[in-house]
């Protein structure tokens, strides 16, 4: 632990001492004893921080401003009959659709936190999609997030439209979580296990209400939080297996529980599993990327006099065959219940098949043509849709999770 070159506050010192005491962290150095710690704390209250070494080379302009980026998603869409799109940013009407304008603001706050916010502009308003702080220096491989965030249930829910392979959100996420997916104000704690492969355990508690989220819970009929049991609790286990340099497999198990809008004592339980298999060559100029995604969800909701059970999922395949071109296909199936007081418009099974072609003029823009056939059991004819979607990114290009 190189204390001389570190800015240490009392908290930093505590974390530093804890790290120094962990055998795996030990370097070839003398241990720090209680007297050292007291001297350091004493000196810190008297002295200004030590100056940092200056960079040797000439540098470009520096700035303390956060990284900003704007992402515009829009689509020209046509539907063969009245559509029933479930995602909050899906093209949902004939003609031009402004799916979203996302302003992403990111920065490290101090040595202990970073801050990320995604503000989404529609034509008529602004919403705080996400705004959260993430800890950078918790001991024992723990990490804390606090604020408004998309919960890490499943593979697609924590992501934003610009990292999706399709123009619209899977039906099951819209039906079970709401148009904005599963998100809320709350806190998340995650832990990276010391196992030799990647195994992360995530748990969060969030508000169970919201007009376009937490739909299986309080949703739009928010009964308010009176005790800890009125929060939505979400848990997940994320595992990753690098099968080879080119092949990757990730597997997640997720669950969520909380009260629903049919009464504070009535609970909803959601279960999910997701599997993602990816091929991407790391040798030579092969542009091929193949991604296979499966995600399945099931839920039980207590309502007065009954327990409603339904399930749904999707499977998709993505094939990038050229540095600028890719095709993708997706199949979805979601069940429904005839007498569902919480979702009366969805009375039976719904299936949808979609295919799309994507072209990237550069890393910062994307044009997609997507077609789909949507068969709702309670509507006699399938709904056919065609969408021409356009996306541009300006500013600092945010890094994407795997």
């Amino acid at each position, binding site marked *: 632990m190189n204390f001389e070159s570190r800015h240490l506050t009392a908290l930093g010192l505590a974390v530093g001492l804890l790290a120094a005491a962990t055998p795996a962290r030990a370097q070839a150095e003398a241990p720090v004893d209680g007297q050292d710690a007291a001297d350091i704390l004493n000196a810190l209250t008297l002295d200004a921080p030590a100056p940092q070494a200056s*960079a040797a*080379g000439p540098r470009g302009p520096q700035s303390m401003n956060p990284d900003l980026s704007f992402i515009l998603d829009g689509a020209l869409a046509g539907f063969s009959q009245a559509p029933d799109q479930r995602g909050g940013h899906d093209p949902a009407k004939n003609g031009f659709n402004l799916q979203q304008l996302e302003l992403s603001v990111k920065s490290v706050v101090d040595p202990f936190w970073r801050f990320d916010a995604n503000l989404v502009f529609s034509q008529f308003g602004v919403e705080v999609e996400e705004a959260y702080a993430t800890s*950078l*220096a918790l001991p024992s491989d723990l990490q804390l997030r606090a604020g408004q965030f998309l919960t890490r249930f499943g593979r697609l829910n924590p992501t934003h439209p610009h990292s999706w392979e399709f123009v619209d959100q899977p039906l099951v996420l819209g039906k079970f979580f709401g148009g904005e997916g599963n998100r809320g104000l709350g806190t998340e704690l995650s832990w990276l296990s010391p196992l030799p492969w990647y195994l992360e355990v995530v748990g969060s508690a969030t508000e169970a209400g919201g007009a376009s989220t937490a739909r299986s819970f309080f949703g739009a009929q928010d009964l308010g939080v009176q005790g800890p049991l009125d929060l939505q609790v979400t848990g997940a286990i994320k595992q990753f297996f690098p099968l080879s340099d080119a092949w990757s497999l990730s597997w997640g198990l997720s669950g969520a529980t909380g009260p629903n809008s049919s009464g504070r004592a009535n609970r909803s339980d959601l279960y999910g599993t997701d599997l993602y298999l990816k091929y991407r060559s790391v040798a030579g100029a092969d542009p091929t990327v193949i991604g296979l995604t499966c995600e399945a969800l099931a839920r039980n909701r207590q309502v007065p006099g009954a327990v409603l059970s339904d399930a749904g999922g999707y499977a998709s395949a993505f094939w990038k065959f050229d540095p600028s071109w890719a095709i993708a296909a997706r199949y979805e199936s979601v069940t429904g219940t005839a007498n569902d007081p919480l979702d009366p418009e969805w009375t039976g099974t719904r299936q949808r098949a979609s295919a799309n072609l994507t072209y990237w003029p550069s*890393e910062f823009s994307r044009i997609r043509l997507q077609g789909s056939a949507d068969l709702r059991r309670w509507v006699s004819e399938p709904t056919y849709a065609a969408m021409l979607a356009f996306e541009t990114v300006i500013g600092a290009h945010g890094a994407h999770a795997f």
Partner: protein
Amino acid sequence: MRKWISGLLLGGLVTLFPLSAEAKVKVVATLPTLAAIAREVGGDAVEVTSLAGPNQDAHFVDARPNLALALNKADVLMVNGLELEAGWLPVLLTGSRNSRIQPGAAGYLDASSLVPLKQIPQQKIDRGMGDIHPGGNPHYLTDPRNGGRVAVGIAAKLASLDPANAAGFKRRANALKADAEAIASSQSKRFADLQVVERHVVTYHNSWIYFLDWLNLIAIGTIEPKPGISPDPGHVAWLLGHMRKVHADVIMQEAYYPTRIGSLLASKAQATLVVLPGGADFAGGQSYLDYVKELTDKTYAGVVKDTGR
């Protein structure tokens, strides 16, 4: 009594010290070339991992969770910097939960701070110019003199983390720097025989400026119309005409770019396509200077083959 306690403490230290001295410093480098330098400087006192492979485009690396796992265990992170890793490193760094290697912490080294940089934009920039790097051209390790500078910086960083081995780090870094400078001067003498017209070079991406300046080669165009933008027919046609007019002997590109346009231009403009590794073959045990020699030998062979010398 006090003597007894201090004797016990000292004894404890003596028995603990060899244990901790054997613990190797865990170095994670983003790029294999940087990893190769770190391995040579660190010797047996370090354990080095590279996040990217030699044939991966460092602009686009998948943020695979196993890379976050490597960062979680790292004592020091060495990055190329200048936003080369901006598309994938930040998410891994946050996911690593490792406060010792965050930017600004003792275990973080941005190697670009150790070398004189080229192509720092002086005018206002925007992405209409392609994917350009506001801090300067990030491909500085293709010039061995920069590799030597980075080696010395790595030695200083490792010495601050593992003072017991500081002398060894310094000695190996100075040796690498001296060898790198010797190779730099012998290779530039070798290339000095070339005629002006033989010095004309086309590259795929604007990633060879340090290499070309060092060997006094002249870039006459890139296959990409702008950095990060795929070639289009109009630009390729212009480049072919330009190559025929000013005569270019060699087309250089990293192995991770497609070779279709390069081979076509080579056959139509009587040039040689030289496909070069994108980084040192760190996993295969290649040293930094062997990588530099591979770059120069293949480039020189391309020129000589073309001119028939």
